C-alpha cells in the first residue's frame, strides 16, 4: 500500500461480510510520527509530530479509541476485530499533536444470502 500525503488513510475490511461475522479491520494512515529526538542533516532538531488519538465509530457508536505516542512506527498501521452486526459506516478519525484531524470511512454491507 503506497500512500504519500500526510493524513492519507485507508481502511480495509473483508469483501464478503455476513451479518454477525467477526471481521478484521486493517487501517493505515500516512504520518511521519517524529519522536522529537532526531535532527536533520543540518543539525536542526525535528520537533515531535505524531498521531496521538484515534477514534473508531461504527454507525453512531464509538467502538474503540486508541491513545498513541511517537513510539508507534511511521505511517501507523493498526488492525482489530469488529462484530459486523449492522449495515453502517465504519469511520476512523486520527488526530495529531498539531491539531490536524484525518478521517476515513468504509461502509459495512452484507452479501445477499
Amino acid at each position, binding site marked *: 500500500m503506497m500512500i504519500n500525503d500526510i493524513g492519507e488513510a485507508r481502511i480495509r475490511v473483508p469483501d464478503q461480510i455476513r451479518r454477525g461475522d*467477526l471481521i*478484521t479491520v486493517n487501517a493505515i494512515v500516512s504520518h511521519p*510520527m517524529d*519522536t522529537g*529526538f*532526531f535532527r536533520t542533516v543540518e543539525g536542526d532538531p525535528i520537533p515531535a509530530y505524531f498521531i496521538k488519538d484515534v477514534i473508531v465509530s*461504527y454507525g453512531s*457508536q*464509538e*467502538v*474503540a*479509541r*486508541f*491513545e*498513541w*505516542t*511517537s*513510539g*508507534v*512506527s*511511521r505511517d*501507523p*498501521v*493498526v*488492525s*482489530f*476485530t*469488529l*462484530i459486523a*452486526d449492522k449495515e453502517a459506516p465504519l469511520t476512523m478519525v486520527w488526530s495529531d499533536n498539531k491539531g490536524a484531524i484525518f478521517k476515513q470511512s468504509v461502509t459495512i454491507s452484507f452479501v445477499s444470502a
Partner: protein
Amino acid sequence: MSERRAFFRSCAAALTGLITTRTERLLAATGLSLEPEDPEVPNQEVARILKELFGGRPIRRGHVELDMPVVAEDGRVVPVIIESDLPMSADRYVTGVHLIVDHNPDPHLAAFHLTPAIGSVSISTRIKMKRTTWVRAILETNTGEVWAGYARVLVTLNGCG
C-alpha cells in the same frame, strides 16, 4: 582437518557446558527459574506508570498473548500482536489494553480502549524500540481484573534516536 574440527567442536561443547552450569548456578543463587521467564523488575518510570494505571491491583500473568519477534533488527519497525481469550460480552469485557516498553524514552507507548462491539482482543500494530528490553501488554477488564503478557525483544538498531 577433521581432527581440527573435532577439537573445535569439543572446545565449543566444553564452553557451552561451562556457560550452562554458570547460568544455572546464577539462577539457583538468585532464586529464579527459567520457565516461565519473568520480566525484569520495573524501573522507576515503569513502576510509576503501572501504579497510575492499575493502582494497587495485582497484575497477574495470563490470558494475554504478546507476540513479538525475539530479535528486532530494525528498532524503527517492530511488529506487535496482542491477543486475549478473555470474553468480550456485554457484561464481561476488556476495557483497555496497555502497551509498555520498559526502556523506551516514553514507555507507555499506546493504549487501546475497547468496547464489546469489537468482539475479541486481537490487535496488531508496529512500534519503535530504543534497545533490548521487556515489553508488557497489560489488559484491564470492566470487573477490575488486570492480566498481563510479557515478551523480551533483542533490538539491534535503535529506532528512537
